[in-house]
């Protein structure tokens, strides 16, 4: 009971209070603990915990593969990918330098240095390394290695080095796969918008309108739509709405015509500037929506979330919330 309940609660309370008070107490030890040590403790624990996760992943994938359960082919790919990345990260250096060039293997690097000269003069010693000639390939290789003509990248730096095998894996396998998954969002946003943006009520209509303004206003194509086009559109939509309300053709026609004439006269007087009146120019309108109502709403939600986090965290620190222990 003490081990499973009171000790964890005490740990949370002590470290939570310590980290919170580090913001206010001007003591170097506490500040160092809160700013550096506490985060590093967590990172170390998380790093070791990855082993548990990886073992769990391998266990489940192997079981699926061996028992040929549904989707076992994907498990085979998962296992192969895991070991591929593991081996080239931990066991294969994958980066050997010859001057500025990088080669994946030492053999490839040696091949670039050793020249095979089959001319009559060099028949005895055909293998050349710089100015030196050798009878056997192995002698030439030994010489190249002894002379440090090939520089292997340090372990650790081999995963960050430009041109290394690890970087190759990242650039040509991992990056395209990640980018593909992110690219799915473009399609999903389209289908989600199409399905969800319906003018069911006033708020939904407002959301729909704001969404359209921002989508069009945010891109260069929106800048090509003049404010006068938007005004004509508003007159047309208002005309349709008047027709829906009054159901009288005369009223609709008069209203719409009057609207068109007014807009045309205003345009002719002002000279049809593309971005005036600015309230109808989509890029400026979307900027206003972003900077004013959107920022206000975002800030309010942010404050609510911030308060929620503060109170929830205090509940954990004071031991009021014990659900994370399973209670």
């Amino acid at each position: 009971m003490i081990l499973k309940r009171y000790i964890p609660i005490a740990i949370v309370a002590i470290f939570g209070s310590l980290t919170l008070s580090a913001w206010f107490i001007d003591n170097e030890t506490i500040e160092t603990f809160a700013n550096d040590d506490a985060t590093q403790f967590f990172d170390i624990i998380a790093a070791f915990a990855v082993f548990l996760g990886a073992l769990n992943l391998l266990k489940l994938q192997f079981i699926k593969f061996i028992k040929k359960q549904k989707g076992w082919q994907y498990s085979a790919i998962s296992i192969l990918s895991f070991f591929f990345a593991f081996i080239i990260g931990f066991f294969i250096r994958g980066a050997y330098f010859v001057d500025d060039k990088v080669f994946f293997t030492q053999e490839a690097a040696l091949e670039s240095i050793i020249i095979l000269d089959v001319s009559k003069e060099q028949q005895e010693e055909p293998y050349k390394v710089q100015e030196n000639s050798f009878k056997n390939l192995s002698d030439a290789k030994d010489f190249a290695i002894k002379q440090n003509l090939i520089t292997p990248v340090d372990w650790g730096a081999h995963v960050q080095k430009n041109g290394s095998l690890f970087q190759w894996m990242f650039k040509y396998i991992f990056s395209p796969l990640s980018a593909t998954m992110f690219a799915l969002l473009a399609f999903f946003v389209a289908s989600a918008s199409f399905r969800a943006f319906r003018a069911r009520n006033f708020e939904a209509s407002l959301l729909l309108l704001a969404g359209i303004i921002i989508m069009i206003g945010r891109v260069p194509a929106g800048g090509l739509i003049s404010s006068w086009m938007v005004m004509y559109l508003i007159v047309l939509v208002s005309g349709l709405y008047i027709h829906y309300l009054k159901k009288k053709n005369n009223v609709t026609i008069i209203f719409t015509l009057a609207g068109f004439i007014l807009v045309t006269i205003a345009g002719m007087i002002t000279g049809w500037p593309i971005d005036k009146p600015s309230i109808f120019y989509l890029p400026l309108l979307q900027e206003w929506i972003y900077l004013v109502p959107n920022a206000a709403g975002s800030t309010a939600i942010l404050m609510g979330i911030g308060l929620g986090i503060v109170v929830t965290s205090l509940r954990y620190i004071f031991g009021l919330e014990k659900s994370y222990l399973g209670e």
Partner: protein
Amino acid sequence: MIRNLENLIIKIGDVDRRVIFVLIGLAVLIPLLTPVSLPIRETPTTVKFYEGIEEIPKGSKVLVSFDYGPSTRPEIHPMNVAVLRHMLRNEHKVYISCLWPDGIYMALDALEDISDEFSLKEYEDYVLLGYRPGAEAVIKGLASDLRKVYTVDANGKFIDDIEMMNNVKNLNDFAYIYSGSAGYPGTFEWVKYGGDPTGVRMSSGTTSVQVNEVIPYVRSGQLIGLLAGMPGAAEYEKLVESPGIAIKGMAAQSFAHIVIVVFIIFGNIAFFLKQKKERKYSK
């Protein structure tokens, strides 16, 4: 005929989402294959960002952080490349850090993109500090003592052996901090633990989705301007006069947005027509 038109619109309203996927795919692919030039209009936040960098005294030390991965590369990479170009043109000394493990590869690619243009020499024009795990702990470490976090750079060379690192003890020794950020850790952490406590001028480039969250920091002056997603990157490429992928991508983005809006409008018209039909038959 009107009835046929109504029925057609109702059918469009019930279209299979795969049709939408195909049309979006075409809307993005065609402008990329047959480039369409569209005028780019700079927004105030991008102009402020540009001016913020122009105000840095020439030859200053600047920290550029690559805090994104391959998934958000289309949005953030163009802006980071443009920022590097701008910094190097103004003869600043660039120090590159990464809070994301993928960031180091993005940094290597960005440097490769501009290497020939500026005849870049490592340790003379830039230092690639590399990736360190720890998120905000890294920033806090940089704010107090850089050598606590980085003892060697990305190539394994000792920091103290790099001449460019002389007189660089912590964030206060930089004139400017820039973070190209796609999430956590990124802009917020740099503002909270980097820019704010040290008072060093900073700004950021973020994905479009994050702009909402970051705008309060721009309004409060904690960030000097902002590069907002790919449109922001395109605007900035125009300002630094080096058109790149962002400008090319704007046509694709424009057409994709237009296709989505057209579908939304058709969907709503179909919705109203359906409602009208249902009311008619229920009478």
